[in-house]
């Protein structure tokens, strides 16, 4: 049932208005951060106010104006958008608190710009979540790219500029070269670019063109970080950790997965996808990305980079869910947006927390960290459970649905890929936790290294060896950073666990999509 409502507009505009207040309060840091927090809460309530309507099976609509014949700029809230919107809203609140702790602990410069861009990015993210057609979505998609650029290049160092340019080049390049033609093609064949429940693409046109448009979509949505168009994501890890946490674990990347799901479900429709065998093509690309990115993750020693590669891998889980074209698979894919978001943001929060407390960024330097920072590493452990998919943590539920979906679709090889990927996840996340709790901090005496090198699975590392003489003092005096940092990461960890215990909440949103 379609209902006209202004609520989506309010939810989207709140962070935009909030960003103005943030600019106005630039001279008073406390007031400025107050504005961020108030905005985050208001937006959260605006989004939540739409929950009862959506759950009762309604689709909320609001059209601003007609930009072009049958191409309006407007909003439409359905189950998929709602899952994404809520996840972004909840995580923004937590990230706001976390950013305050993080930015102030490190005494970062240009904090007003940081919080302003953050708010505008959230505006664009919510806009993307609630867009009613590809044109509106495209505008918000590009806005996200532009307003995250200052955040990525926040440090203003040479490296930051270089990586920021890479970021811009990949995201803008793909969207200009591939996404724009794909949207125009869609408009040409379907006469509109609206999202409808069963897709808008006509079945009676040239199949080659349809497949071409689809491939252009996949290539154009750079934010989903398909291999080989993924390297902007690890590059963007140069940004401060809250940016990596909210934007490159939740908002930006989920926008990518969200767009692909929109294309699969609402533009092409499941029937047409099946008819053209596009599901298999997507699944192959997604699976290659899943495995390759996991291997990259195993190879990277930088903690944030490792988490970023894990994100590349996990994004393809969501796409894979859609590509399986079975209700269970799509459920799994959409659920994974939420499950992954909370687990991944926890991991990033933890990485940031470790950085604030110790200035360490390498995995190999983190032995024994759990004894000094038990809360951070406990949260990291819970998030790891979710990433590996160990019940009852959240990641298990979505993985379970994805796996069932893949057997239902008779694509058994995707089952193998999912299982392998979970194992690889364990390989690159679990050692961090276990070494953090059960290994001594690097005692870099030559004889210990020699002694441990053979029988130990986790021998001393290059980075640690370089800081020779740290023996035991490596972590002396380290303790948990401020509560602003620790509390949010504990909350996200708990949420990621609770979501696994009560996935019904998410399932209901997805359920209304298929009514």
């Amino acid at each position: 049932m379609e209902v006209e409502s202004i609520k989506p507009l309010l939810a989207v505009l709140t962070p935009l208005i909030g960003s103005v207040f943030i600019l106005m309060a630039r001279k008073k840091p406390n007031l400025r951060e107050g504005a961020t927090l108030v905005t985050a809460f208001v937006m959260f309530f605006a989004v939540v106010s739409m929950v009862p309507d959506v759950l009762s099976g309604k689709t909320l609509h609001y059209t601003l104006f007609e930009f072009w014949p049958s191409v309006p700029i407007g909003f439409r809230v359905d189950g998929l958008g709602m899952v994404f919107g809520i996840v972004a809203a909840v995580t923004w609140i937590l990230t706001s608190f976390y950013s305050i702790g993080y930015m102030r602990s490190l005494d970062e410069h240009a904090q007003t710009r940081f919080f302003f861009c953050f708010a505008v990015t959230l505006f664009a993210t919510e806009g993307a979540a609630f867009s009613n057609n590809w044109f509106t979505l495209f505008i918000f998609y590009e806005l996200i790219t532009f307003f995250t650029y200052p955040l990525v290049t926040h440090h203003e160092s040479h490296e930051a500029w270089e990586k920021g340019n890479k970021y811009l080049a990949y995201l803008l390049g793909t969207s200009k070269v591939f996404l724009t033609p794909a949207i125009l093609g869609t408009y040409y064949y379907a006469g509109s670019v609206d999202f409808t429940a069963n897709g808008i693409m006509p079945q009676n046109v040239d199949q080659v063109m349809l497949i071409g448009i689809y491939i252009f979509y996949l290539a154009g949505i750079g934010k989903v970080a398909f291999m080989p168009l993924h390297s902007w994501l690890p590059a963007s890890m140069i940004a401060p950790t809250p940016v990596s946490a909210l934007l490159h674990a939740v908002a930006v990347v989920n926008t990518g997965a969200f767009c692909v799901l929109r294309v699969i479900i609402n533009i092409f429709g499941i029937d047409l996808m099946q008819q053209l065998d596009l599901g298999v093509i997507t699944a192959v690309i997604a699976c290659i990305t899943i495995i390759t990115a996991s291997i990259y993750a195993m190879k990277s020693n930088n903690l944030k980079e490792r988490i970023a590669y894990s994100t590349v891998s996990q994004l393809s889980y969501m796409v894979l869910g859609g590509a399986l074209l079975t209700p269970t698979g799509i459920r799994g894919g959409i659920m994974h947006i939420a499950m992954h978001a909370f687990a991944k943001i926890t991991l990033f929060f933890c990485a940031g927390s470790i950085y604030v407390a110790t200035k360490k960024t390498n995995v190999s330097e983190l032995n024994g960290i759990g004894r000094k920072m038990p809360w951070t590493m406990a949260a990291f452990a819970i998030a790891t459970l979710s990433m590996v998919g160990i019940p009852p943590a959240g990641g298990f539920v979505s993985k379970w649905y994805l796996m069932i979906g893949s057997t239902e679709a008779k694509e058994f090889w995707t089952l193998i890929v999912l299982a392998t990927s979970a194992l690889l996840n364990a390989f690159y996340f679990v050692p961090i936790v276990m070494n953090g709790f059960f290994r001594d901090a690097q005692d870099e005496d030559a004889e210990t290294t020699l002694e441990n090198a053979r029988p130990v699975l986790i021998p001393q590392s290059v980075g640690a060896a370089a800081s020779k003489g740290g023996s035991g003092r490596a972590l002396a005096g380290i303790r948990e950073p401020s509560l602003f940092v620790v509390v949010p990461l504990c909350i996200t960890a708990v949420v990621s666990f609770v979501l696994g215990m009560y996935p019904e909440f998410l399932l209901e949103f997805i359920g209304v999509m298929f009514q």
Partner: protein
Amino acid sequence: MESSLPLWAALIPILGAFALLLKKNSDSFRNAIVIGASVLPFLLLLSLYGSVINGGVHYAISWLPGFGLSFKVDAAGLLIALITSFLWILCSIYSITYMTHEDKRFRYDFFSLLTLASNLGVLLAGDFLTLFIFFEGLLIFPYPLIAHKEDAPAVKGANLYLYVGVATSLLLLSGMVLLKTYTGSLEISAIAPDIAASMGTAVKFQIAILMIAGFGGKAGLFFEHFWLPEAHPVAPTPASALLSAAMIKAGAYGIFRVVNLLFVPQAGAAAEDWLTLGNIGYWTIIIGTITMFFAVISALISSNSKRMLAFHSISQMGYIVMGIGCAAYLGKDGAMGVAGALYHIVNHALFKAALFLGVGAVYFRTNQLDMYKLGGLMKNMPVTAICLFIAVCGISGVPLFNGFASKTILHHAIIESYEHGHDMTLWLVEKIFIVTAAGTFASNFKMFYLIFRGNRPKEFEQVEPAPLPMKIGMVGFAVAILFLGLFPNWLLETAIGPALAPLGFDPSSHAYQLLYNVQTQVSGLAILYPGAESFSVVLHNLFSSVVALGLGGGLMYGGLKYHWFHITIPKFATFDFYATKMLRRLLNPWSLASDKRV
């Protein structure tokens, strides 16, 4: 009957674990909680006995965690759950003093209780998803127990354990996904034959292989065993005992459920379904036999006594899995195999725990695990020696001790299987069975001899006897071993008989009849009873045992005299070598440079 007691049995240890947080540093408080939280589930489960015999207990909660949890207890599950919590009680008592030598006792107790909860959950689960949730708990919670010492071997063992566990649990998960897709259900009951013939038997084999391999990781089946001798011995002794005697059974239990329940055809099923079951059974026998044989070889050449016992755990799991396979191979006539497997699960739990605790007591006083460096401790530690002797007799299958009964039944099962199809490999399996029993006898008596007899090294002259709580633990197990050894029929009548009832065996089958015949004779004492009906069966059983023990005695004598036990297998021939190497490469590729530097 519907009852929430199974849920509570799994929940109480969890609650107990969190109750430990109240007074983290009080030893007496923690001991009381740990023992209380192990005794209560035992009593709860015991109180379920009546209703389980009369048709089973089930319970379901739908609101947690998303899918809902369901519990279903039948006699087999209850039996293993009871023996598990019994082990936990005695090992907790034992650990009161043993753990005074270790620090981080809170962490140990906390995770020990969580492990108990997961273990009970696995055994009481009513569907595979519930089972899987607890199975993953059983993957994570023992990690701190194994890595307790936090030194290099402990962390290595724990890591191997964890990664093998994750990998195999993913196999299990894949099997479950296939099962769910094809049958629409994950209930632990005979649902696999419902997979339509149109899907082909290939699917059934895929499910069986994935699930057996999935559970086999925990059970230490061949190819998946290499973590076990690294992980079990490095834990503190009570934890080693629990891992090796109780937790490993969760894997055997899973295989038992898959092979002996999931794939058992219903009445009136097509012959093809029975054939599938038979094939699954056949390969299970083969895997079990390989496991039991090679592990006993490894045990013979181990000098670390805990490591040796870990190899024996693998070997004894081979016996159990072979029994499970025999039951499936024999189809409707498989009662003997299941009975032997279940019986051996119980017996192995008892004697393996007793062995570990005994060796642990020696270690506690001497700080020495290498059996070749010990000797003559009989005078110092008489109670430990006697308990260990009883356990050694138990594991070796000496008549009048518990292992004799179950090994005899298993032996009958494999003979049955051979006569069923006259497959020559099964004839060979029967011979390997005897040889393995001989090897078990040789290595265990060798250990006993080296520790307690012979010359006592000077530094051990002042060794004191084991402290009281440790004695209580050991004597408890020794008494249980003797009791089951002298009255083997008690367990067959009270628990194993009822466990066989719902499994769809043909009560008029030869095996079933023979089982009840054998029942009266397995004790070995039957030879003294007047009116023993089939005297020849008794003699036959004793004869097999005597052959095995004789061979074992010869092996032990020769081995000690000519130093056969000091053979070392070259590194490249061990699984551990490759697994460790592979994991090292996988887990930290960036460390290669530092390796070169070293």
